[in-house]
């Protein structure tokens, strides 16, 4: 009753407002809706323009020069597209991109497999599942820097707990398990830490996907005597797929720009085996001080992330609308 009255009143009020000439309406409501909208949105936009867009434009401009931030008084030469050319033809850049791709690919594969399996098991709703879910979520809330640092301790040859456990079960002497200093093992050391930390993230999103599947679909399948195997492949997986893809999208973007954990675990080494794109960028920008060159590299990375994310979102929407 009251609702209906309110709607009626509201409609009346709206008609009245529309009929009132603008200046009067302004006086009545102190500030027009339009003014309020802009007042509310503008500060955020100004901040983002100042802290994100202005620097980005500056970086684009620098990317065409040979500017070096540690020599501010030197004359800056315009080098045109030379920086971009060098990056795209440089074999070191491609090595960094390969290291990044290897890292992104394996972390996503492992996290999706483990994360989805965990979500599937948690969805069995055993006793205490809510508590254990919260426990599993803890690693992803921690600081990647701090995580990277204490995993370095676990990986220490001889004294590290990880090294000890691996050698205990495999019989390999602990002095031969150098997770962070062996060319072969270092990339995997990083993948293990990232998987430890972010599997809960994928799990949580997958769990939401599994819970979004209405019970009646399974009931109908039961009536049709579809085997559990069949139910999994033709109901569970396809219906949870958009969620899995969302998780992959977020993890993909995050890991493409991965910096903190790698920086603390290996710093890109040994040699440059774990030098992912962000580490190369940091070395160029803040160690070799090739600001112009690194700006160009940053722009390329940004375009790559943006392009990949866009393509992926399109695919995601297609899957969702199916």
């Amino acid at each position, binding site marked *: 009753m009251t609702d209906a009255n309110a709607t009626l009143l509201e409609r009346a009020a709206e008609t009245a407002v529309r009929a009132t000439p603008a200046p009067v309406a302004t006086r009545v409501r102190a500030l027009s809706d339009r003014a309020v909208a802009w007042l509310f949105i503008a500060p*955020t936009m100004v*901040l*983002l323009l100042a802290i994100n*867009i*202005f620097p980005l434009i500056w970086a684009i401009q620098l990317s065409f020069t040979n500017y070096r931030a540690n020599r501010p008084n030197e004359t800056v030469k315009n080098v045109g597209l030379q920086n971009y050319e060098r990056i795209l033809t440089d074999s070191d850049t491609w090595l960094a991109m390969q290291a990044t791709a290897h890292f992104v690919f394996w972390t996503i594969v492992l996290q999706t497999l483990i994360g989805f399996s965990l979500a599937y098991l948690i969805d069995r709703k055993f006793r205490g599942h809510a508590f*254990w879910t919260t426990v599993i979520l803890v690693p992803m809330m921690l600081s990647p820097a701090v995580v990277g*640092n204490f995993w370095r301790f676990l990986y220490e040859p001889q004294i590290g707990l990880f090294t*000890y456990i691996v050698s205990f079960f495999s019989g390999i002497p602990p002095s031969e398990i150098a997770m962070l200093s062996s060319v072969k093992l270092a990339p995997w050391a990083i993948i293990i830490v990232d998987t430890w930390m972010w599997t809960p993230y994928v799990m949580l999103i997958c769990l939401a996907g599994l819970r979004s599947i209405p019970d009646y679909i399974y009931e109908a399948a039961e009536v049709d005597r579809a085997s559990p195997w069949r139910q999994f492949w033709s109901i569970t997986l396809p219906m949870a797929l958009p969620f899995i893809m969302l998780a992959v999208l977020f993890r993909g973007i995050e890991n493409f720009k991965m910096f903190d954990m790698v920086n*603390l675990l290996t710093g890109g080494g040994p040699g440059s085996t774990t030098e992912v794109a962000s580490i190369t960028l940091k070395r160029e920008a803040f160690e070799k001080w090739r600001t112009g060159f690194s700006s160009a590299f940053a722009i390329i990375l940004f375009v790559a992330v943006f392009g990949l994310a866009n393509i992926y979102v399109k695919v995601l929407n297609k899957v969702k609308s199916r």
Partner: protein
Amino acid sequence: MSASAHSVIEPSATSKRVAGAIVILYAVITMIPLFWIIATSFKTPPDSIAYPPKVVFTPSIEGYCNLFTTRTRQTAEYIQSLPPATNFCDETTRKRNMVIAGQSNFLPRFVNSLIIAFGSTFCAVFLGTLTAYGFSRFKVPLADDLLFFILSTRMMPPIAVAIPIYLMYRELGLSDTALGMILLYTAVNVSLAVWLLKGFIDEIPREYEEAAMIDGYSRLQSFWKVVLPQATTGIAATAIFCLIFAWNEYAFAALLTSGTAQTAPPFIPTIIGEGGQDWPAVAAGTTIFLVPILVFTILLRKQLLRGITFGAVRK
């Protein structure tokens, strides 16, 4: 919502038990590193690097002592000439032929973390609430593009952002200042705040404010007195997410701060003792740093999904 006990789709007792066992096993394994770091913080330096790793040990707070102090090596004669030790830290330090020379940088770095995290969270949530309300309630031209733009600022690799920010802050005198870091973290967090809060505000029926406005409230009054109280849960959850991000952030902090404004994450890995990293002290710093996060995770568990997907998935 959940199926009744005799529904055909309710998993069997055995499958539940097996699922539970596997999940609990995973949870326990995944907690080992965390337990290990907390345990290490209560070990003495020799215990922390013992082989095989010591699971049973006599707890000591030497790590915490070392975290908060700097020490210098002295001769035995000098130490004997000192007045008797007044507290545990003094005593342990002297047993290692050292004396406490002063306070370490940990406390100031920790305070920096607090100031920067809370400052930027306040700003981001303040701006985010206004902007989210604006997008939620008004027809903003190009709203979708603007919202996408706000989100896209978060996709940039931090190092790519750090290069021009470094130059800009150098020009403006904001390098290594708390203000500079607050501004930067606000800009990063505001995108999350807008997206999350827009979802929360969208869920508050417009009718409430419209009724209030018919009763004579202005737009601003109804925002303040009707919408904000309704959105408290959402605002609190958003604030905690912003706080966690700012608290945990490393890349910007490591590149843009070095002294006065340095936060705890870039500082903790640099704690070194004699002959390498002082692991109990590092572990102690890590433990102190992680406790607030553990508390927040428990507080947030119901909103977690929403927060980590920028509001894309709601339960």
